[in-house]
């Protein structure tokens, strides 16, 4: 059995192509059924988000499987010529598939490295596939492992640490100044979109009071209603600053609204309690000179962006650690997959032995008249002999199949016992190795 994957993402395909291939939730069932109807594909699952469309499948023949998946994807957007889709596709097999899945689920292949949303989408994709019964023993195991690996990466590395959006970076800075934001108050000057985002972030950290001011008082009232804040007349905002620990400014005025003189007064009124200014307006509305005042911290849009970029680099460094985890986990999972190859052989060997035992029993019983009890004793005896004889070869098959020369061992077993395995792994419950970790 081989695990393969075909797909495209923001790294390989422009949005015009991605949006045509994207499969909305409502049509996911239909798509999964179409995937499963292909006789080449034993198990399958589809991950479709705004950044990627990927199909993962279990097949017998890798090459034929790739052809099937490519056909499936080109048919998904039948109004686009295949020649436009195919160059965007990436194909993975065996261990590469596993590592790719781990990387995607951990958010390392995302547009913003380490973003956590994708894990939920992977879970959803798995749920859809389970619902439509397109997965089996192998994909179930792989998806469960993928989800646990993503969680492991999140706890053991720093890929999810450090703020990577401007509004989040502002909140992180506020936490470095004030610690717990509960009980603090903030003032929002102006009604820019980014300021609103940052205000929402602050509100989600339970700040006690959010005052909102704007040149147009009606707009301030509107925004205050929407966000759950208190509107303040624009003329009063300097007085309001004395009561605010955090001042978010995105007023869009052509000049400085807040200067050294005002802030000096505010700091005195605050008895030197620190105050944090975030100026996201361009041109800037807060005089940069105030950063020189004691207990005043001013960050403008570039400072925040710089901090975001630095944090992204930190996350990238952490991603290297995650790769080591992926390799380790993929190795373990590959071993389990390979051990599955022994299952048909084991089943065939057991069937063959049982067939011989039954045939010989019948022949013997035909010649010698025996009581029922005696017959049962003979049956028990023969079963015990067969089981003991098979015990060592079966154990060896299970163990060796997962090793590097597994195929050779399987081939040797086939020749030694003249086996023709017909059933395959999917229909038999495979043995599972105890998982480490």
């Amino acid at each position, binding site marked *: 059995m081989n695990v393969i994957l075909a797909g495209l993402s923001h790294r390989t395909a422009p949005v015009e192509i991605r949006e045509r291939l994207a499969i909305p939730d409502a049509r996911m069932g239909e798509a999964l059924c179409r995937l499963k109807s292909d006789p080449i594909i034993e198990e399958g699952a589809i991950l479709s988000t705004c950044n990627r469309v990927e199909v993962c499948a279990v097949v017998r023949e890798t090459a034929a499987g790739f052809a099937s998946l490519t056909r499936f994807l080109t048919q998904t957007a039948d109004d686009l010529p295949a020649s436009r889709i195919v160059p965007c596709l990436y194909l993975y097999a065996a261990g590469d598939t596993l590592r790719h899945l781990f990387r995607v689920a951990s958010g390392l292949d995302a547009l913003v490295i380490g973003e956590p949303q994708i894990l939920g989408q992977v879970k959803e994709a798995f749920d859809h596939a389970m619902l439509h019964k397109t997965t089996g023993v192998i994909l179930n195991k792989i998806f469960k492992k993928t989800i646990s690996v993503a969680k492991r990466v999140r*706890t*053991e*590395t*720093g890929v999810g*640490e*450090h703020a990577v959006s401007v509004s989040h970076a502002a909140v992180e*800075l506020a*936490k*470095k*100044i*004030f*610690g*717990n934001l509960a009980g603090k108050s903030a003032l929002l000057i102006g009604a820019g979109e980014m300021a609103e985002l940052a205000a929402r972030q602050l509100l989600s950290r339970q700040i006690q009071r959010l005052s909102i001011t704007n040149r147009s008082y009606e707009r301030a009232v509107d925004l205050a209603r929407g966000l759950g804040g208190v509107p303040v007349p624009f003329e009063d905002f300097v007085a309001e600053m004395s009561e605010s620990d955090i001042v978010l400014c995105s007023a869009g005025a052509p000049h400085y609204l807040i200067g050294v003189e005002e802030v000096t007064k505010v700091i*005195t009124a*605050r*008895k*030197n*309690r*620190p105050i944090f200014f975030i100026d996201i307006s361009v041109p800037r509305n807060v005089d940069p000179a105030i*950063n020189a005042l*004691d*207990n005043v*911290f001013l*960050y403008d849009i570039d*400072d925040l962006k*710089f*901090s975001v970029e*630095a944090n992204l680099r*930190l996350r990238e460094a952490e991603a290297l*650690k995650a790769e080591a985890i992926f390799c380790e986990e993929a190795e373990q999972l590959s071993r389990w997959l390979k051990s599955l190859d022994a299952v048909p052989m084991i089943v065939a060997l057991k069937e063959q032995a049982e067939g011989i035992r039954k045939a010989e029993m019948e022949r013997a019983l035909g010649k010698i008249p025996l009581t029922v009890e005696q017959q049962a004793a003979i049956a028990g005896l023969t079963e015990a002999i067969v089981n003991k004889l098979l015990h060592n070869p079966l154990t060896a098959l299970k163990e060796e199949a997962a090793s590097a020369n597994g195929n050779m061992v399987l081939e040797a077993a086939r020749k030694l016992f003249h086996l023709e395995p017909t059933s395959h792994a999917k229909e038999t419950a495979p043995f599972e190795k105890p998982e480490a970790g």
Partner: protein
Amino acid sequence: MVPSAFFFKATLSFYFLGTAFFLLHLWDREGSASSSEGRAATIQRTAVVLAALGFVCHTVALAMRIRASGYVPFTHFHEAVSFFSWAIVLVFFWVELRYRIHILGSFILPLAFLSLISASALPNEVRNLDVTLKSAWLGVHTTLSLLGLVAFAIAFVAGVMYLLQDRFLKSKQFGPLYDKLPPLDLLDQWNQRAILAGFPLLTVGMISGAMWSQYAAGTFWTLDNPKQLLAIGIWLFYLIVLHGRVTVGWRAKRAAHLAIIGFAGALLIFLTLE
């Protein structure tokens, strides 16, 4: 080897190693935020374990010393400094267990180690006090004054950490140290609480000192004694610092500076005492 000296030396070694690991933790580029695995966490845990081993040895050494001499043994320098160092490590463990802010160790343990090293350079034989000097007041006086000094040392450490973090935030330079230092607000709170705890200790310490002086020399106060004047000066200084916070807002950066100046002054007086 005298067992108490053996434990003292063991303490020194553990504090030395602990200091080394805590400083390593300080400069480690790896973030300490959430990862419970990895190098940073191992370094930090090792440092705490070493400090804990040192602390146990130190406690044993001090207990043996008290048994041997029969009095609370802070009458000469070696003993006083040793007790000071023991008490700040105790405070570190309290903070470590309560707040899980490991970086405090990177400041406290070097301080404890340096104090102990300077103590070990001083004479440390158990001496028999004159009957005139032996009084419960002396024990109370030295213990409380030393605990006051410990509290001011904590305020000092919080002040240093505050100024560092303030500088990082102002200059927008975010290194590994920035990640590990606690928020400014918390550091300012530590500063205030430490001084709030230290001030009454110093006050009662000074009163008991006067009582002892009355007992030993027949007078509460000798104004011509510069040490006593300096002690009153420090007491007034901290009184003004506490008052200034409430009235004119000597908090945040100003408070950090004051805590550093105050501890430097208190240390100076401590060093001139005999």
